[in-house]
């Protein structure tokens, strides 16, 4: 799957739309996480508009690729992307975290069609995705036609369960599993390397027996290429080690860990949306 310049541009525009929706939904909710969702908007746009095999009108399609979101607190980027893909109306995003909403503060599998699992408590996504990938491969003939993806965060690699899952996936040679890690170097209490150092992160995964691809996670071409490369590795799971910029798209908050777990204020919403609108216009102009 090569990707053309036109396709990249289209995904970049989608990522911008997703970022604007994230800002609006978080401001309306009055709580939630901003930095992670903005940092992962490019990857989620690429997943839903290019990489994943899925059908918004048929969320239970048997041959869909499975995407497990492990770090459930970045739910706004998942919801916004699903909405822009056609799973539900974009305006429903403004119900995030409200009573009776399908968009629970952390994703709840039974609340919204299209979610593979419930998540929020950290460190459990790799194992679930690995269990799913393993079960699919157990069948005779192995269940084919889809791949299992899991999106994780760097902070949640403080959890032992993450590494237990990483060991399991490697031991069982799960070539049908791709992990995408949001390596943004921040967590709630500070920078990851100050809170609990994770480096050399990629090498740790290599030592655990994974195929590791290091990319700039805000570069759509690199991400799509990495997803393609992962499919060619059949005897081990793949980690797409994506260096992302937390808060990407809003210059004043980029790389600031204080934005990990808070929403924009009403005033900030206006300023942030303006910045994103200008970026969108610039993108459109650059294409002409």
């Amino acid at each position, binding site marked *: 799957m090569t990707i053309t310049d036109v396709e990249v541009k289209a995904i970049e525009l989608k990522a911008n739309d997703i970022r604007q929706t994230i800002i609006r939904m978080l401001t309306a909710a009055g709580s939630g996480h901003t930095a992670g969702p903005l940092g992962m908007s490019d990857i989620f746009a690429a997943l839903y508009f290019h990489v994943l095999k899925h059908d918004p009108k048929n969320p239970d399609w048997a041959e869909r690729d499975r995407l497990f979101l492990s770090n459930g607190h970045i739910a706004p980027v998942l919801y916004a992307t699903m909405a822009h893909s056609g799973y539900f109306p974009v305006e429903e995003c403004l119900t995030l975290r409200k009573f009776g909403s399908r968009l629970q503060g952390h994703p709840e599998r039974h609340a919204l069609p299209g979610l593979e699992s419930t998540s929020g*408590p950290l460190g*459990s996504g790799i*194992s679930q995705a690995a*269990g799913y990938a393993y079960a699919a491969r157990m069948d005779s003939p192995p269940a084919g036609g889809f791949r299992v993806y899991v999106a994780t965060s760097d902070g949640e690699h403080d959890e032992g369960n993450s590494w*237990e899952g990483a060991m399991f996936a490697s031991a069982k040679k799960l070539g049908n599993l791709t992990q995408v890690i949001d390596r943004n170097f921040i967590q709630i209490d500070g920078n990851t390397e100050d809170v609990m150092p994770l480096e050399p992160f990629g090498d740790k995964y290599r030592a655990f027996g994974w195929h590791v691809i290091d990319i700039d996670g805000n570069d759509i071409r690199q991400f799509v290429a990495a997803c393609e490369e992962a499919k060619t590795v059949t005897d081990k799971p793949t980690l797409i080690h994506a260096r992302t910029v937390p808060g990407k798209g809003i210059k004043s908050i980029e790389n600031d860990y204080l934005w990990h777990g808070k929403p924009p204020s009403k005033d900030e919403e206006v300023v942030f949306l303006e910045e994103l609108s200008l970026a969108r216009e610039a993108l459109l102009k650059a294409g002409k």
Partner: protein
Amino acid sequence: MINKEMHLREDLFEGKEKSPTRSGFGKGAVEAGKADERVVVLSADLAESTRADAFQKEFPERFVEVGVAEQNMATVGAGMAAYGKIPFITSYATFSPGRNWEQIRTTIAINNVPVKICGMHAGLLTGPDGATHQALEDIALMRAMPNMIVISPCDAEEGRKATLAAAKNGLPTYLRFARDKTPVMTTPETPFEIGKAQIFWKSKNPKVAVFATGPLVYNALLAARELEGHGIGTAVVNVHTIKPLDKELIVALARETGSVVTVEEHQIMGGLGGAIAELLARECPTPIEFVGIQDKFGQSGEPKELMEHYGLGVSHISAAVSKVLGRK
């Protein structure tokens, strides 16, 4: 006297036939595996001890070793169940559902996928391993969890049936098993249905209802026989399913007898006694005496001496019956 409808063993009171309830799991898992190819068994480095090895021998391709990693076992199991398998995850109860409680809550119970959590070495029957390995809080951990079924078989035969029933119920389910050999009371003809408590013994004119769970049902029966000899009539109920509780039968017997004793190898707080007290306080306030662990941890020792030390012996049950009669 023994309730004939339950088809209990004729030689029940001789206590000749003994087997650990975990062996019932081993047999049940193999039978469940034969009946349904979706059944898989996961082990956290305790295959022999949990009797998961029986399944491993029969179906090596459906046996999954995860190493000493109970959190991983629960979450891998959740993923396999989401795909469509029926995973039985096996370890000691202090580790699973002890160590991995949150993983069970989020990925199994909230997701509502049919993983069967099999907690072995529950209770003082674990013996010499000591307090760290004697699960006395596991029922409370699982009872408080929405969507979770909680089953505590009274003997190996019932353990086999409970395993088979759990494989078919399509729900998150906790199964509690013990290490040491205990008397087999039931037979293949004894009925078993999740959620249906069973009257094993009923005197002509019962004055006390004794609700017991797990292998201690045997001690309750011994106490009932002894009490009948002294002219005190009781009913002994095997409450193998602690959640959902058989409310109808428990309330009816509490009304009929007017006093209740609960018996369990578990902390009184949050266990069978707690469940029955919650029910009767609402439906039919009744004096209750609780035979169980009194907010303590266990210690090393032979199961029999531990049972006596912690107040779970036949004499303790008889004493509780006498005491509750005095409160009527």
